[in-house]
């Protein structure tokens, strides 16, 4: 393959919005029918807000390797902790250079990360609040971690500074996009609380199934195409992987998703007697999320193992989060993106290098849990203090479509608003 790497990276980036489309369809399908239009409009709005926030200040803080940055010198080592680019992309030549492509891919990645919490906040998260939260995520939280990993920051430099393998490796964003979005989804679920009627007085959860399995499963197929673009573009742009190796990236991505879906089907078939469509869909996306980090660095057998483990992990994580954490996550965003993404980060350390690589990956994991989780919880808690994120009780009873938009997604269907309310 003798194409210009940057041209190829741009072409792959054009596929990334399909990953967002897939996640939006999955979130809408796993929510209630009376909130379906709201879920899709929220997805569009969140992508729009994330793009603008990233344009205003996100890239200024994410930057790109080789561009100006704030640094500290500790014990003779230089620590790059924040980019120092001007706001509004001022002075940056948008001419197909790697830095300009980083703006484009970063804008899409920020939108993708901001979509993930919509899954955990389904059926009760106000439209305005989800947009405000997306602005905070895309304008500050995501760029901070992305700078540390992809912008020449300290996590990416652990290989150079500390001889820890190749530094923190995350080609397609298992940590930077999926885990950041998934941990934010956990915070949103905590702040919003469960849907009315989800947990009984004794804490027993009620099953509130999604309303459209076809949307969910089609979303999985769309997500695969988007993930292929994301993993290939990230590998070229952030790690300089040769265009010829994009075949390996595409094969690993596909194998990871396939192995995960089959593993989920096998587990649910064994446990419940029949494969569960929504859990298989969650497993598929969990496999994609987990496989992103190592897609360019591992052989296909490892991609299959990583994906299969993710498929099993997601099924048990969905149940554990609902039963033991009392977290109401209608879209399975925490299990799929946080648990799947974190597993992907660890898997690169286990299978993609020596002990030093594992330590670098664990340092990234520690940063996600010890810095990004408290940070995203704090900013969303403060936001909730000034602008209540959860819809009013009446909104939940009537459905988000009628309450916030004034019209339903399926106006010709009879809706029963009290179907899932405990009597």
């Amino acid at each position, binding site marked *: 393959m003798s194409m210009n790497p940057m041209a190829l990276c741009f072409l792959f980036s054009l596929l990334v919005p399909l990953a967002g489309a897939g996640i939006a369809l999955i979130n809408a399908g796993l929510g209630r029918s009376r909130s379906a239009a709201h879920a899709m409009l929220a997805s569009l709005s969140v992508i729009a807000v994330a793009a603008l926030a990233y344009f205003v200040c996100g890239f200024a803080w994410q930057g790109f390797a080789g561009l100006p940055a704030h640094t500290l010198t*500790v014990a003779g080592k230089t620590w790059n902790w924040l980019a120092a680019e001007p706001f509004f992309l001022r002075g940056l030549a948008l001419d197909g250079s790697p830095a300009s492509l980083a703006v484009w891919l970063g804008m899409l990645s920020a939108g993708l990360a901001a979509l993930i919490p919509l899954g955990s906040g389904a059926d009760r998260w106000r439209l305005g609040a989800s947009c405000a939260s997306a602005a905070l995520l895309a304008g500050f939280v995501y760029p901070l971690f992305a700078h540390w990993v992809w912008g020449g920051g300290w996590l990416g430099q652990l290989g150079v500074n500390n001889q820890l393998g190749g530094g923190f490796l995350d080609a397609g964003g298992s940590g930077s996009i999926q885990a950041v979005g998934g941990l934010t989804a956990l915070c949103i679920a905590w702040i919003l609380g469960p849907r009315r009627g989800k947990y009984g007085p004794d804490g027993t959860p009620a099953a509130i199934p999604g309303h459209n399995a076809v949307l969910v499963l089609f979303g999985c197929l769309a997500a695969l195409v988007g993930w292929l673009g994301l993993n290939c573009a990230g590998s070229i742009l952030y790690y300089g992987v040769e265009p010829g190796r994009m075949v390996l990236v595409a094969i690993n991505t596909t194998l990871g998703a396939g192995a995960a879906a089959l593993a989920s089907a096998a587990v649910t078939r064994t446990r419940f007697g029949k494969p569960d469509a929504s859990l298989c869909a969650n497993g598929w996306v969990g496999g994609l999320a987990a496989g992103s980090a190592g897609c360019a660095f591992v052989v296909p057998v490892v991609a299959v193992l990583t994906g299969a483990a993710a498929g099993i992990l997601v099924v048990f994580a969905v149940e554990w989060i609902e039963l033991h*954490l009392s977290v*109401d996550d209608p879209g399975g965003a925490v299990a799929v993106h946080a648990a799947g993404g974190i597993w992907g980060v660890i898997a690169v350390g286990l299978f993609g290098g020596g002990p030093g690589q594992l330590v670098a990956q664990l340092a990234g994991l520690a940063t996600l849990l010890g810095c990004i989780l*408290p940070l995203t919880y704090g900013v969303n808690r403060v936001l909730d203090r000034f602008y209540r994120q959860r819809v009013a009780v009446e909104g939940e009873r009537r459905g988000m479509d009628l309450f916030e938009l004034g019209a339903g997604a399926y106006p010709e269907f009879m809706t029963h608003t009290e179907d899932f309310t405990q009597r």
Partner: protein
Amino acid sequence: MELAGFMLLVAGWAIVAAAAALLKTVPLETAFTVAGLATEVVGLVLVIRAHRGTQAARG
């Protein structure tokens, strides 16, 4: 309990970051990274327990 949990999460990360900045050998860094992660796990358990009580009460 929630605040204590989040403080432990940040403290665990501080251990990992300090180890990366100050230590020079991989075995030492490994030990401190694992210690930092263990601290974070304790913090995460505290945060989860704090929220579990609140969520069940709200549901």
